[in-house]
């Protein structure tokens, strides 16, 4: 088709350049909306699961006396009424280690956050192979980190 024929017959039907520009804008719009959606809906933290199921009902009770640790807010640990900081607590666990592994019961005191409890659990796991259980203030064992 020659240029003269196009100008005499088809010019009205061809919006040409203007139309191409609109197509690009709507593409950008959609991409922007998708981008904002993914920015809001995605999470970058890596979540992992710890098995905190309670011990089996038929499990044999440990022969050694459990070490009962009360966890206070802010990384303070109480064993038999004595307050320990995290280093002293870790050292105490390691000394216990030598005369047999006694299970450790972690009991959150009033005001203790979950982060405090997990910090205590981390120290116990780092100190040796003690069995770890969470205990609520009523004194019932509720399973620990496996």
């Amino acid at each position: 088709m020659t240029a003269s024929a196009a100008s005499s017959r088809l010019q009205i039907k061809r919006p040409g350049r203007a139309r191409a520009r609109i197509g690009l804008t709507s593409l950008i719009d959609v991409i922007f909306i998708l981008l904002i959606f993914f920015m809001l809906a995605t999470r970058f933290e890596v979540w992992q699961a710890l098995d905190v199921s309670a011990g089996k009902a038929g499990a044999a009770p440990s022969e050694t006396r459990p070490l009962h640790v009360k966890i206070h807010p802010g990384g303070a640990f109480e064993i038999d009424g004595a307050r320990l900081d995290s280093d002293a607590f870790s050292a105490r666990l390691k000394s216990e280690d030598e005369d047999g592994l006694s299970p450790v019961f972690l009991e959150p005191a009033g005001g203790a956050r979950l982060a405090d409890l997990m910090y205590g659990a981390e120290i116990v796991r780092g100190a040796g192979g003690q069995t770890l259980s969470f205990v609520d203030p009523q004194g019932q064992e509720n399973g620990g980190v496996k």
Partner: protein
Amino acid sequence: MKLRRPSRFQENEPALPLINIVFLLLIFFMIAGVLAESPPFPVSPPGFEEKGAEGETKNLRLYVSAEGAFALGSEELPRAAVLERLEATEVAPAPLDIVADKEADAAVLVTLMRELREAGQHELRLIVQEGAG
């Protein structure tokens, strides 16, 4: 030596570099993040040094906020209703993932674990974030 500038391109399409960058950002967010079910309140699980099991599963999730609000899936429920619902729906054979905020009261959570077990939920998993808390 004189480099030729792609001047025509820039004059005609100043939006092209913008689209390129937005596209890159879009692809980054699609690949790097996890599209996840969102609880009705913000929850930030505690950190834990040790590696745990895979946390991105289809298990039913119980969310606990820092203020002590509960949600099962994306539905906010009072505490008693959570236990009732779990007892009624018999999800017991499947594990239940507890996603609790690191500022949530630890005693409340430990008591909740006991109540969940009494309600027949024997397999409990606590969600933590990778890395030291």
